[in-house]
């Protein structure tokens, strides 16, 4: 494309020739901002005093860009921008719809809150190791995954955040971390490679990688095309990323090993990207095949939620309890995917946003409890109520939220999901969701009972905590309050989020708006 040849050849059929409105840059801003800040932090890796503050500025800008993008998407419908001036499907498209923008905004908020928590939690050695650059690069990958409109590009963003998450996972290089990271790395590599295999078949079948183009062609492609194989492969690959049973064992093996902030980020964000990718591929690209797979997905969902919460009941380390609760949450989200109705999907989307906030809050709670009570183990924790009534109140609200009880945010997505299941006559699915909520209440109630209410650990266990001299982490508790406020607000005023979730679900089911954003006026 050197100067002279561009003049000689008419490129209007392959390239964008008109000017692009500046506001379209909102679509790539959530990727560019963390990328540039991550690069800057890497460059000035020795100026560790400034890392935290620079990262906070970057993440605040990210949240701002995400919020602006979401409001614009809600107002004008999906937006698209294709890289390098090529017309889709030749160039790589970035397409933001209500689903992607909502997830990106929630992820941005979670990362911002975690960065504040990290100001105190990550010491100098952690900063030297590069906590903040890895955090920014991981957010680049996460935002990219939510906003890209190209399935191969989705793979690339998956790898970006997975590789950055390795960095966060081994931060500190303790023995348990190395052990957990080995399993996490190998199994995630297998998962993403499965994704790549599916994408190779998809490319062989459709000859395109642009998701809007695939969605358009999937309706008219011949019967002989192996769409069923593709859908099943994507279910397996993204199920692995989302930690759905029976490919979830990497999660409890690794999520309790890193620094608590890293665990909070992972628990909040990473599995939801798997759910997002499942929604995107199975609902938008292969709706017919999803309907055939619905029973399988449903039973996977039931197994994931029940076995997840049973695992939580069998653990005595708070971080491992929460790791299993992440899994059972994944099961609940898969239930909406199995139903495939608009109510079910909007329940899944709402639950995913709720789960990002609540899982992060729970891991941070475990961190604050450890700082005050001196341990992660339910055998040793005790007397936290006397040390901090505020923390107890927060813990109670979070316990209600994760169990799906009012007044916190977990209630409404579960109401939507149960309603959708009953509407579809899937009583077993509704029953499983309710049973999971009940068992989660027991698991959380036990943490509450032992860590907060009892005065001293059982006989024979060394006491590690004295309420009179216990540390009172101000930043930690402050961050938890900041996270608890939206969780309660979502529970009390759920209508706006339900509306957004409904829009996102409708956008998935009726992909014409998404396709029109990429291919205006049906061209291309």
């Amino acid at each position: 494309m050197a100067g002279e040849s561009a003049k000689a050849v008419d490129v209007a059929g392959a390239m964008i020739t008109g000017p692009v409105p500046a506001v379209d840059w909102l679509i790539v801003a959530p990727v560019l901002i963390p990328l540039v800040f991550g690069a800057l932090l890497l460059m000035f890796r020795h100026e560790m005093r400034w890392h935290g503050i620079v990262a906070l500025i970057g993440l605040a800008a990210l949240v701002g860009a995400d919020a602006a993008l979401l409001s614009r998407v809600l107002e004008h419908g999906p937006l698209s921008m294709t890289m390098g001036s090529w017309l889709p499907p030749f160039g790589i498209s970035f397409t933001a719809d209500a689903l992607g923008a909502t997830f990106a905004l929630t992820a941005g908020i979670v990362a911002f809150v975690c960065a504040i928590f990290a100001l105190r939690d990550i010491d100098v050695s952690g900063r030297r190791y590069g906590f903040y650059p890895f955090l920014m690069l991981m957010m680049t990958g996460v935002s990219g995954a939510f906003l890209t409109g190209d399935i191969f590009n989705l793979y690339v963003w998956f790898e970006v955040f997975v590789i950055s998450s390795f960095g966060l996972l081994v931060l500190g290089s303790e023995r348990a971390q190395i052990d957990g990271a080995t399993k996490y790395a190998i199994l995630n590599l297998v998962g993403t490679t499965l994704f790549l295999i599916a994408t190779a078949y998809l490319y062989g079948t459709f000859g395109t990688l642009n998701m809007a183009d695939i969605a358009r062609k999937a309706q008219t492609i011949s019967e002989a095309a192996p769409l069923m194989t593709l859908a099943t492969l994507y279910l397996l690959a993204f199920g692995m990323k989302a930690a759905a049973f029976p490919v979830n064992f990497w999660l409890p093996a690794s999520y309790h090993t890193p620094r608590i902030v890293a665990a909070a980020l992972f628990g909040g964000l990473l599995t939801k990207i798997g759910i997002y990718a499942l929604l995107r591929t199975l609902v938008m690209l292969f709706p017919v095949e999803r309907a055939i797979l619905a029973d399988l997905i449903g039973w996977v969902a039931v197994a994931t939620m029940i076995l997840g919460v049973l695992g939580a009941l069998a653990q005595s380390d708070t971080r491992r309890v929460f790791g299993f609760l992440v899994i059972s949450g994944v099961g609940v989200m898969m239930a909406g995917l199995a139903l495939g109705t608009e109510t079910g999907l909007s329940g899944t989307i709402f639950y995913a946003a709720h789960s990002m906030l609540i899982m992060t809050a729970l891991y941070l709670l475990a961190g604050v409890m450890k700082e005050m009570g001196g341990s992660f183990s339910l055998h040793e924790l005790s007397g936290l109520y006397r040390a901090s009534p505020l923390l107890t109140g927060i813990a109670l609200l979070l316990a209600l939220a994760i169990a799906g009880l009012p007044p916190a945010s977990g209630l409404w997505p579960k109401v939507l999901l149960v309603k959708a299941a009953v509407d579809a006559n899937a009583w077993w699915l509704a029953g499983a969701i309710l049973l999971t909520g009940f068992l989660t209440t027991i698991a959380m109630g036990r943490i509450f009972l032992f860590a907060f209410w009892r005065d001293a650990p059982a006989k024979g266990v060394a006491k590690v905590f004295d309420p009179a001299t216990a540390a009172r982490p101000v930043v930690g508790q402050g961050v938890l309050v900041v996270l608890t406020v939206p969780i309660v607000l979502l529970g009390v005023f759920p209508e706006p989020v339900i509306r957004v979730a409904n829009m996102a679900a409708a956008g998935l089911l009726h992909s014409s708006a998404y396709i029109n954003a990429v291919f205006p006026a049906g061209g291309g």
Partner: protein
Amino acid sequence: MRTLIFRTAAPYLSSLMLLFSVFVLLRGHNEPGGGFIGGLIAASAFAILGIAYGAPAVRRAMYFHPMAISGFGLFLSALSGLLSYAFRVPFLTGLWTSVHVLGVEVDLSTVMFFDIGVYLVVVGSITSIALALEEREDG
């Protein structure tokens, strides 16, 4: 591996490979080559130096920390994409200009700076991994 022959040859070999890596990088403009493969050649040059003289010598020779070099490369690549913003074209659109330096016309483009960024990212990250492996062997 620290034979006299190898130790004598290593600096020459490394500098030759570094030179070649820059050639491959710039050649990638219109012919096979480019930032990634050039970066790999440069990283192997540093690896050879490391095998001969040990990791600390390489760190001294590189002056900047490998990860900082990576960061700079990433920044350069992102900036060359961001330049599109000023010209009202989509992100990462290739922009071209030619300047006259000492009577020679030189074509400059954002594509080239993007590729140089890729080169630096690869040099930095691969070298730091190679050094991490070499340091373990020593220690």
